[in-house]
């Protein structure tokens, strides 16, 4: 099967090269049949890569340890669910996933646009196949998912326990879908620049591609944050890690594009800017993929194997130089048709928003890459980290939120005092009320940035509510429908706008949650014995009793914490620290059960207004005396029975060994149980943070808003509305 898989990858490479050739030839010779053939090559690529991926999945399900990636990331004790997700936890497997998702999304998009954009699509196909060729060659020659070892081991290393979390099933495919979807508007932009077709149909389709990429990438980022918060033992959701930043940068660029493209649609301005944003987003997406895999920057995510770094740098170089060259080549076609009239208009607000977003991207890029920049300039790697991000990102985020509120309610072209009065009164008043309440109730005067975010966030929420209200009542005045029906009709008729409003609402809620949970969290690091307690932010955490469980897959030590506030009971938290057995036999027969990977299970009570979060780090060191004794005892025992064992028939050998293992397991369980019977003080990290749930809730609203904006208008409705307008305008024509 390894040969079959590797051959499929080579076949895929051949298909990509053919696709590039056929598409470019078809475009230049204006031969429709070659263009179609090139497009079908993309479909074929999707089929072949999906088949290859299925083969990998089969290998995992069958515990085929001849395959290196199965040995590295799976084991016989791994559950079926995680065997399905383990393929993309390795470098080689994830490369294959990347190619597969790229070919899948490309096939879908090229199929949907097969009758449109006919001068652009062939070049776009060639670019997409170029990316596929790049990643497929890496999979074929540098990190082969079908690489085998002989003789095949009998057991694998197992999946890193940190990855055994449902979110981990969706986070990489979502992120990769986001990255590969970014390649599509990039490819179509290249195609548009080459063919010179930069008109309305290119804009309309690119906007949808960009929105889809934005949605998937954003979901991937939020899932990563959620996983970090609920699974890792540090209690945070965003660490400004290099890889987190790498996904955030293209996301912010596309956010800018989604807004500035509206100016191009309406006023024919910012053409160079928009096409540059698309090209930059695609480049940043590839750059992000490069950062994760090259090990070039320190990150908890880094894949390592710096042999992959050089090809990526070459690809990025080609992309950047190619983009700049093409934009310069097409400058005449990208001339602006209009200029901004007034700095107090919606166009200006959109432009400021774009500038703020680009500034944010620049800051993130600079600080993330600073270790490399400083090493190149001064010879020493200088690392900055989170303290450098916040002084810049937070003020920029505040400006962004303010603009998100102002933008929808300010008028196009120019603003008047009457317009200001009519539209800004309610939102400004609401924000003022929130500000007063916050200052009065929350003792928040020491945290001006958080207060600013809450005030501005409320401003945005108020504008969105005002827009929905006014739009619905205007529609009601016309159609005499009930409120819910009118609301539904309003949203259906103006999906982009109202989906966008929901996104603004969701982002505001999310950022309010971020501001609250970062500025007002209380965390406490404490060592407790059973019976002792500690108080964090008014909540009393009492360590009730230790817990222990010794299973085949892991040994977990934990604690039960009873939480009370004042005199009322709040909740009970269970937190454990699990130890997985190590495959390294040098750590001892018994010792290896306590020496492998460890993970924490967080004790979490997530509420609407506050989260109670606790982890414990139980160190097995007090058991080391017993463990060492056990190691010696069992090693000696095995040495003693070895000579007799080899003389026994096979079946009896297994019986003796089974008894030995059972005896050993009992010993391990017995030693572990000492945590209950002869317990020792353990360290707890307890965090009480407000409004964390608002982050996830806000993100969900953002996703819903994005889906509404992206939802295609049913063909029938489009024809109907077009007919209505045609009739009205026809009267004027006549």
């Amino acid at each position, binding site marked *: 099967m390894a040969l079959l898989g590797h051959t499929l990858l080579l076949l895929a490479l051949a298909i990509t090269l053919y696709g590039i050739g056929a598409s470019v030839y078809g475009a230049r010779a204006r031969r429709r*049949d070659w263009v179609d053939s090139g497009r079908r090559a993309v479909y074929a690529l999707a089929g072949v890569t999906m088949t290859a991926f299925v083969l990998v999945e089969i290998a995992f399900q069958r515990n085929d340890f001849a395959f290196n990636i199965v040995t590295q990331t799976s084991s016989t004790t791994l559950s079926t669910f995680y065997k399905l997700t383990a393929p993309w936890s390795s470098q080689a497997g994830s490369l294959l996933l990347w190619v597969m998702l790229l070919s899948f999304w490309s096939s879908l998009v090229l199929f949907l646009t097969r009758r449109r954009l006919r001068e652009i699509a062939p070049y776009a196909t060639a670019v997409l196949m170029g990316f596929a060729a790049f990643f497929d060659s890496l999979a074929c020659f540098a990190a082969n998912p079908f690489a085998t070892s002989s003789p095949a081991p009998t057991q694998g290393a197992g999946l890193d326990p940190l990855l055994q979390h449902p979110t981990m099933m969706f986070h990489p495919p979502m992120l990769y879908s986001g990255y590969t979807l970014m390649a599509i508007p990039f490819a179509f932009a290249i195609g548009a620049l080459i063919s010179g077709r930069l008109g309305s149909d290119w804009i309309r389709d690119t906007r949808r591609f960009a929105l889809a990429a934005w949605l998937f990438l954003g979901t991937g980022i939020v899932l990563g944050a959620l996983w970090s918060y609920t699974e890792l033992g540090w209690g945070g959701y965003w660490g400004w890690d290099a890889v987190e930043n790498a996904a955030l940068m293209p996301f912010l660029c596309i956010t800018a594009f989604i807004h500035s493209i509206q100016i191009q649609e309406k006023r024919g301005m910012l053409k160079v800017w928009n096409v540059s944003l698309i090209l930059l987003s695609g480049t940043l997406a590839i750059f992000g993929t490069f950062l994760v895999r090259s090990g070039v920057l320190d990150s908890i995510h880094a894949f390592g194997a710096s042999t992959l770094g050089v090809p990526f740098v070459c690809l990025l170089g080609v992309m950047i130089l190619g983009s700049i060259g093409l934009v310069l080549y097409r400058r005449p076609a990208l001339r602006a048709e209009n200029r901004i009239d007034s700095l107090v208009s919606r166009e200006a607000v959109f432009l400021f928003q774009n500038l703020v977003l680009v500034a944010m991207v620049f800051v993130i890029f600079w600080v993330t890459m600073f270790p490399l920049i400083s090493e190149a300039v001064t010879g020493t790697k200088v690392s900055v980290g989170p303290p450098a991000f916040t002084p810049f990102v937070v003020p920029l985020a505040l400006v962004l939120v303010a603009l998100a509120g102002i933008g929808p309610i300010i008028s196009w072209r120019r603003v008047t005092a009457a317009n200001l009065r009519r539209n800004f009164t309610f939102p400004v008043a609401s924000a003022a009320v929130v500000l007063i309440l916050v200052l009065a109730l929350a003792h928040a005067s020491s945290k001006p940035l958080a207060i600013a975010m809450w005030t501005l966030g409320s401003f945005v929420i108020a504008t969105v509510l005002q827009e929905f209200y006014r739009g619905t009542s205007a529609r009601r005045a016309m159609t005499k429908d009930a409120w819910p029906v009118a609301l539904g009709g309003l949203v259906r008729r103006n999906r982009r706008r109202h989906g966008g409003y929901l996104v603004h609402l969701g982002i505001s809620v999310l950022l309010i949650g971020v501001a609250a949970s970062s500025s007002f969290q209380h965390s406490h690091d404490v060592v407790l014995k059973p019976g002792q307690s500690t108080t964090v932010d008014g909540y009393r955490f009492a360590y009730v009793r230790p817990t222990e469980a010794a299973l085949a897959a892991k040994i977990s030590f934990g604690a039960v914490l009873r939480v009370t506030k004042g005199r009322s009971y709040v909740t009970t938290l269970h937190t454990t620290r699990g130890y997985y057995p190590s495959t390294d036999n040098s750590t001892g027969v018994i010792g290896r059960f306590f020496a492998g990977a460890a993970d924490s299970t967080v004790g979490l009570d997530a509420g609407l207004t506050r989260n109670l979060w606790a982890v414990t780090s139980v160190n097995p060191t007090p058991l080391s005396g017993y463990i060492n004794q056990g190691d010696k005892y069992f090693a000696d025992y095995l040495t003693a029975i070895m000579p007799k064992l080899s003389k026994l028939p096979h079946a009896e050998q297994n019986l003796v060994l089974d008894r030995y293992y059972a005896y050993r397991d009992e010993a391990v369980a017995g030693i572990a149980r000492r945590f209950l019977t002869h317990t020792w003080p353990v360290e707890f990290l307890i965090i009480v943070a407000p409004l964390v749930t608002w982050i996830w809730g806000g993100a969900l609203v953002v996703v819903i808003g994005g889906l509404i904006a992206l939802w295609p208008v049913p063909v029938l409705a489009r024809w109907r509305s077009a007919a209505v307008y045609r009739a009205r305008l026809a009267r004027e024509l006549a």
Partner: protein
Amino acid sequence: MTYVIVLLVLFIVVFVITAPLRRGTDDAPGSDSGGVPDPSPELLELEAARDAKYREIRDAELDHQTGKLSDEDYQAVDSTLRAEAIEILRRLDSLTGRRS
């Protein structure tokens, strides 16, 4: 066994990819397999521009209804947009040879 599967996959791939090439020579260039002529790029471009213009007209209407455009501003914007839409429709008509 592996070789059989590889050959099978290869055959399917080649079949799928070369289908347009095997058909293509007897159809007129610029038409798809059904023999129906595809809309020209100019037509698609104009239709996209027309849809965008209709959306703008609707947006302006909504802006006016929710108070972001004053009555005079709305009249001005609306008539400009309608004039631009009419121009697009005229060009569409001339392309499709249809009478209004």
